[in-house]
């Protein structure tokens, strides 16, 4: 017989826990839900847009009554649970009905804080918490004129904005000097106040409410200083309090909230709790993302998977008042131990403040221009050392390299028709619609439903902004992002486990780290295959089935399922014989298109998979090998002609390029890797947008690293200057090895170095000669196992003989 799970509280946190639970253990429990409100589960955060008339109740429903039916969940709406018999394991509702449980989940949420001044219980005094409150406000707006909103925080301002749009005269009363003092500092708070005054709101600052006036119904508010204003409606939005009424009645340990451990379990092991009612590690949360993380962990333990720990969340906030662009995160007030970087342009309505502690971002406030909010929030969560780019930090991520969209990427300013994701043609309106109609809350969900930012990822920041401004807050866990859905471990943990425990196969990694999916998935398998090969080059065996098709077939798959073939041309050099052989192959196999690539070689398109070995055989016969144009490995070494011919050339750039290509080809890397060597500072080989670039000068060689000419153009950082070709090669090997050993799979060198910092790379590769030599030696050693031509291996028929032939041909 199934165990019984009872959920008390049919709000976002509780229902999300059930959704997570049904995903992983759909048959484990008979589930009964008690909700005090007469609805299914709706998105409470979107009550503000409902009040403002921008959305309807139906549009904010997350789980309809049908959803409960379809999942065989017994739902009691409008039934408040008033007691729990913990000995007999049953809950008791106000109407006397009962339900017994094996596991109980309390998700009682929070209550609006009604300031206990005289008259607070008069008709016309309400909170702003549920659909009923919104209905009351909308009803009141029909025949009353003036409203006082007590509370100048996020909730109060959203309520005030909505009531104003409903045609009421609104005065916001705030006890502090600064609006939204939990999210804003005094400067940005003042800018916000001015903007909202411009829209028609009135403010009474530093005003302490003394009494609500009126007979049965409210008629006004009196303050401590004796002044009065009239009001037909008073909305108390002075904060929320975790609803611990039930927990206290049944003797369950609660302080500000119901106290839970890292598995969301209360002091009664049969009772779990999630959402705004809980207190975890001393913190309570009133934002949605932490609740969802809690839901995920709680579901995991209810399903008795026994893994998953909630470690708290860092939160960020956006104000959902149309046309006001505001972002804040972390500790933005600062103290004696912090430093501030501030930019203020009052005329343009822009204010930004970053708070740094030990060269790491600890908080951020942005007003008017929040485009880089998601980036700062990422740096804050990752605790990235920003000293290497501190002077350009304030100007945003684009200034670490020109993304080419400057001024055109403010999400709030975009119209619904404007395209956000250029790869998949997704407009802003499309994303917003998916978020609201499908009830999406995370970047992953938006990617899955709309494909926005799911291809090249360059619009991720924009999508995050749209998500944040539509959902209202965008918060995240402090822990590292998991590699994929098969596990909760981040890349660094996995790499360390492989190193420290001598794990030499994908299978052993999955077993050691308790992967949820026996086979892994298309995201983690290629990563794990690379990680074991990089850590144990002599022992790990390559798993072809865990490589993307291009690396398995050693050619580039094209949209029609044919392949393209690129033979290597060392340093961009070729010969009449090689060109003749390429021409012969093109004739013999009726190659429809021959193209010169950006990497100084020749690409043959439209080749059928079964013809690949024959094509390679002909190219091999002319002395050519695979150009690895398809792999996470060295692609090309681009060169200019250099001192041998060029009147400006200072060194033999072509010759050095050939040497570097001979040194590095075939190496397994986290992502593709490009090298260039220019013979003089005119830099015709464009070495300063490559992963490793050499610019020859009269006195030696400048070494540049971590450039990128792709999605986001990023000029290289200067690593150092050396005097000889041998040194160039040693530094190159050491740099590549550090990248191979420490970057995450699918990180190009640019994002990797932005994460770890140029100083760190210099420390390992430049400052410490012993470290450099050791890295280079490990690189040379690993190359012993990777420098055999994959084309020749397959032409011989000894490797992957079945890959290129059909299983059977019929008819």
């Amino acid at each position: 017989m199934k165990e019984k799970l009872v959920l008390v509280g049919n709000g976002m946190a509780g229902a999300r826990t059930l959704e997570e639970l049904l995903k992983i253990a759909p048959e484990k429990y008979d589930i009964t839900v008690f909700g005090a409100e007469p609805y299914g589960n709706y998105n409470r955060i979107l009550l503000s847009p409902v009040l403002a008339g921008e959305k309807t109740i139906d549009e904010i429903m997350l789980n309809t009554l049908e959803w409960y039916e379809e999942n065989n969940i017994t739902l009691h709406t409008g039934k408040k649970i008033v007691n729990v018999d913990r000995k007999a394991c049953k809950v008791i509702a106000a109407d006397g009905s009962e339900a017994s449980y094996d596991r109980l989940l309390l998700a009682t949420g929070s209550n609006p804080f009604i300031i206990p001044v005289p008259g607070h219980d008069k008709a016309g005094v309400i909170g702003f918490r549920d659909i009923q409150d919104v209905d009351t406000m909308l009803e009141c707006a029909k025949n009353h004129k003036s409203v006082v909103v007590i509370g100048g925080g996020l909730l109060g301002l959203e309520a005030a904005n909505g009531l104003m749009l409903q045609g009421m005269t609104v005065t916001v009363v705030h006890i502090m000097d600064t609006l939204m003092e939990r999210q804003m500092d005094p400067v940005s708070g003042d800018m916000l106040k001015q903007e909202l005054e411009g829209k028609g709101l009135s403010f009474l600052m530093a005003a302490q409410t003394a009494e609500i006036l009126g007979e049965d119904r409210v008629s006004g508010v009196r303050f401590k200083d004796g002044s009065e204003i009239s009001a037909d409606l008073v909305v108390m939005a002075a904060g929320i309090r975790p609803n611990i009424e039930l927990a206290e009645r049944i003797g369950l340990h609660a302080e500000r909230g119901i106290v839970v451990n890292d598995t969301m379990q209360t002091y009664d092991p049969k009772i779990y709790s999630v959402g705004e009612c809980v207190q975890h590690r001393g913190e309570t949360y009133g934002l949605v993302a932490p609740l969802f993380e809690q839901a995920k962990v709680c579901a995991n333990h209810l399903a008795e998977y026994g893994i998953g720990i909630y470690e708290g969340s860092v939160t960020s906030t956006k104000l959902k008042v149309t046309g006001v662009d505001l972002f804040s995160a972390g500790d933005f007030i600062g103290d004696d131990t912090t430093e501030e970087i501030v930019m203020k342009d009052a005329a343009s309505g822009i204010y930004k403040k970053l708070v740094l502690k030990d060269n790491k971002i600890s908080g951020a406030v942005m007003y008017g221009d929040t485009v880089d909010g998601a980036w700062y929030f990422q740096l804050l969560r990752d605790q990235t050392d920003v000293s290497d780019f501190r002077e350009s930090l304030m100007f945003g991520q684009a200034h670490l390299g020109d993304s080419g969209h400057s001024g055109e990427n403010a999400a709030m300013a975009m119209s619904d028709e404007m395209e956000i994701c250029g790869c998949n043609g997704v407009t802003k309106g499309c994303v917003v619609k998916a978020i609201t109609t499908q009830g999406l809350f995370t970047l992953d969900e938006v990617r899955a439903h709309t494909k926005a930012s799911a291809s090249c990822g360059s619009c991720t920041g924009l999508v995050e902004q749209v998500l944040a401004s539509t959902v209202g807050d965008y918060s995240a866990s402090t822990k590292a992002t998991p590699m994929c859905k098969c596990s909760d471990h981040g890349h660094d943990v996995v790499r360390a486990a492989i190193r420290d425990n001598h794990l030499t196969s994908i299978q052993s990694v999955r077993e050691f780290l308790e992967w949820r999916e026996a086979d892994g998935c298309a995201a983690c398998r290629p990563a794990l295959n690379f990680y074991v090969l990089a850590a144990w080059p002599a022992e790990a065996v390559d798993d072809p089935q865990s490589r993307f098709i291009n690396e398995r077939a050693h050619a580039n798959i094209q949209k029609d399922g044919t392949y393209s073939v690129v033979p290597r041309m060392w340093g961009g050099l070729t010969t009449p014989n090689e060109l003749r052989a390429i021409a012969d192959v093109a004739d013999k196999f009726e190659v429809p298109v021959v193209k010169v690539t950006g990497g100084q070689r020749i690409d043959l398109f439209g080749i059928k998979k079964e013809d690949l070995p024959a094509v390679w055989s002909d190219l091999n016969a002319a002395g050519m090998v695979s150009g690895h144009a398809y792999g996470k490995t060295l692609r090309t070494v681009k060169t200019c002609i250099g001192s041998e011919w060029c009147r400006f050339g200072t060194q033999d750039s072509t010759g050095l390029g050939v040497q570097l290509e001979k040194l590095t080809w075939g190496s397994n890397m986290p992502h593709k890797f490009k090298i260039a060597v220019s013979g003089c500072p005119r830099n015709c080989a464009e070495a300063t947008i490559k992963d490793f670039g050499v610019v020859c000068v009269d006195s030696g060689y400048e070494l540049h690293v971590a450039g990128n000419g792709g999605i986001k153009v990023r000029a290289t950082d200067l690593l150092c200057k050396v005097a000889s070709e041998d040194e160039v090669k040693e530094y190159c090997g050491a740099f590549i090895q550090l990248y191979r050993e420490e970057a995450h799979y699918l990180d190009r060198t640019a994002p990797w170095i932005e994460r770890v910092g140029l100083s760190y790379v210099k420390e390992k590769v430049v400052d410490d000669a012993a470290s450099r030599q050791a890295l280079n030696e490990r690189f040379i050693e690993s190359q012993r196992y990777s420098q055999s031509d994959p084309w020749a291996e397959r032409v011989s028929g000894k490797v992957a003989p079945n890959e290129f032939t059909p299983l059977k041909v019929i008819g």
Partner: protein
Amino acid sequence: MSNWIAVGTVDDIPKLGSRVLQTPDGDVAVFRTADDRIFALRDQCPHKGGPLSQGIVHGNTVTCPLHNWKISLENGEAQGPDEGCAGHYAVKVDAGNIQVELK
């Protein structure tokens, strides 16, 4: 009318891999899972026609190599929020010999 065709043996296909059956009506992808079950789908992703035989196989699913759609090996249906279906074919395995029922 049934049209069962012998196409080869289980060992002809790598574990977590796939090979192609060329037919006059187009390619059929024949898959082998980690636990040696065999499935056959039309070798065309319902999204943009990507060759599913070239994807990465995991569990009962193949991920299309072109745009990462996940397709169920059991019924050809796209997983998650994506919608679409690659046709699937009945498969029999007897003593390691695979038969596929072509339509």
